[in-house]
């Protein structure tokens, strides 16, 4: 994703979010009092922030389009690079995927979500052990002591938080 695309997405997202705040979220989710003796109301500050978001979003969007146009003009009508067709087999593509950054990011995000899902259902110790081991498997860790360390760490945290710091564990 190039800079201009990022700016366009950010600008458009901010603009739409600001408008949604002003026209839908604030009117529906900020409870007002009929008699307000404080000269400012509960929606003053959120409205101010939302208007600023709308303005900043519109500015960023406009700036991104303008700068992109300038850049294209400068680069000689913006010739686009021809996209290569990927001719690898499914197996090769899969192998490449499970060694890619995207795979690691997705596995980490999935494990974090799984942690939250399991925490109240099976408790901290089991959740901690399952998620830690799952991540090591996903990262293809071959060292046995890594598995021992993460499981021991889960038990250590449990002991520290529940017995020493008296936190009521799920």
């Amino acid at each position, binding site marked *: 994703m190039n800079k201009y695309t990022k700016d366009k997405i*950010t600008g458009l997202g901010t603009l739409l979010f600001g408008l949604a705040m002003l026209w839908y979220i604030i009117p529906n*989710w900020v409870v007002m009092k009929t008699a307000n003796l404080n000269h400012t109301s509960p929606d003053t500050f959120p409205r101010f922030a939302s208007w600023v978001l709308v303005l*900043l979003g519109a500015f960023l969007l406009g700036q991104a389009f303008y700068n992109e146009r300038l850049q294209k003009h400068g680069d000689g009508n913006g010739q686009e690079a021809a996209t290569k067709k990927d001719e690898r087999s499914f197996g090769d593509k899969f192998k490449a995927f499970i060694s890619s950054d995207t795979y690691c990011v997705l596995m980490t995000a999935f494990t974090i979500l799984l942690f939250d899902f399991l925490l109240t259902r099976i408790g901290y110790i089991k959740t901690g052990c399952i998620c*830690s081991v799952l991540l090591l498997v996903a990262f293809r860790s071959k060292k046995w002591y890594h598995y021992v360390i993460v499981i021991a760490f889960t038990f250590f945290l449990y002991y520290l938080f529940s017995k020493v710091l008296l936190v009521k564990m*799920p």
Partner: protein
Amino acid sequence: MLEILGTVASDLFTWQNILFMNLGLFAGIIIGALPGLTATLGVALLMPMTFGMKMVPGIVLLLGVYCGGIYGGSITAILIKTPGTPASAATALDGYPLAQEGRAGYALDAALKASTFGGIFSAFVLIFVAPQVARFALTFSAVEYFALSLFGLTIISSISGKNQVKGLISGMLGLLVSCIGIDPINGTSRFVFRTDLLAGIDVIPAMIGLFAITEIINKSRSVFKEAGIMQKFSSKGIPAGEFWSKIGNLLRSSFIGTFIGAVPGTGATTASFLAYNEAKRVSKSKETFGTGNIDGLMASEAANNGVTGATLIPLLTLGIPGDTVTAILLGAFMMQGVTPGPLLIKNNPETIYTIMCSLLVVNIFMLLQGKFFVRIFANVTRIPVALLIPLLVNLCMLGSYAGNNSVFDVKLSIIFGIIGYILILLDVPLTPMVIAMVLGDICENNLRRGVAMASGSYMIFFKRPISLVLIIISAISLLYPMVRTLIDDARAKKNRNGEKSE
């Protein structure tokens, strides 16, 4: 005075006091270093232990936890970009890049020494000029609080670098997040989509999400690249000459911390961000802030530990607790039969000076204990990423939960983590959002209180001298980086055109 100090020294330097002081520091550093657990929680946890103890050992134990807890937050902020406490969020900005460069020992040592410096500075202020400072701090009304928080918010502009617009977007999102919950002025609900949000969004899970979870997801991209490769590592600390060359920065930051700490209801987080901003503002190498500038790290740490002594100023001299920690300490003092306030200074100066001097000694021991911890903790950067990520996921999830014993906070930290990751992909800086979340609440409440005080007029903010000065500085601080960026861009354009024509 000297006679009193002699008596105090003999009361303070007993083996029991030294032992409990060090136990408190040890517990405080560990608690502070754990994400989600704050110095406040540490003091609250250990307070019941002091009920059966004599007055001085009990109080030095709690002061040890307090100072250690504030310092401990910097350890994880530097090593894994997970501020142990909100007060260390600014430390992560420059500490973490230094650790990534393999200079974890250097960053940790600098943070420790700066924390000690700030702590000792505020302890001296507490001992020598506490009553005067307390009287000045109490002249602050909602108007000055608003101006102060506004000044804090202008940091957004300076830390956003060339991404001014995106920094402001991030800041505005933070302001909106700070509005969630019950409106403190009218008592009505705002954005309460579910009952868990009635009390608003706690900064701790939000910060764990934005800093730690975002970083975990981001770091996972390098699992296969770094597998089996030991990161560059050095446990070498900051040389004495280099440390003392930063004396101006240390004094300024400690002063900011002490001043902010003396004003009830502000706190170490505000102080560290303000000091960071000032360090950047006066620095000749502004562009290196956020990429591993030691001045930024030291400013943040000197300021947040500068708060520790200063929060005791209104407590000991006037009997007013300025924040949650000092409110708990007030309870502990009263359990020991000590009622802080003007009468205590008059009738029982030995007691009050013992408490004040113990803070000085606590900071000296913090330096010694910290040296020991630095050597151990600096090794965290040598852990392979594939092993570090499962450990961090575990720690962050539990840290989010432990602050309020709330599973909802775990969900919150994940939501903030995902939002943070998306924002990073779009090059939107996250720090402005955290700053706005911390200061937005103070800013809005005091703005509305100030307007109510003036029967609806906003002119009150320009009529009071302290407020006016702070608003002028805020305007300069907000506009200067923007103007500077525009000038730099115009110059660069001019140079490019000049080169082309040649």
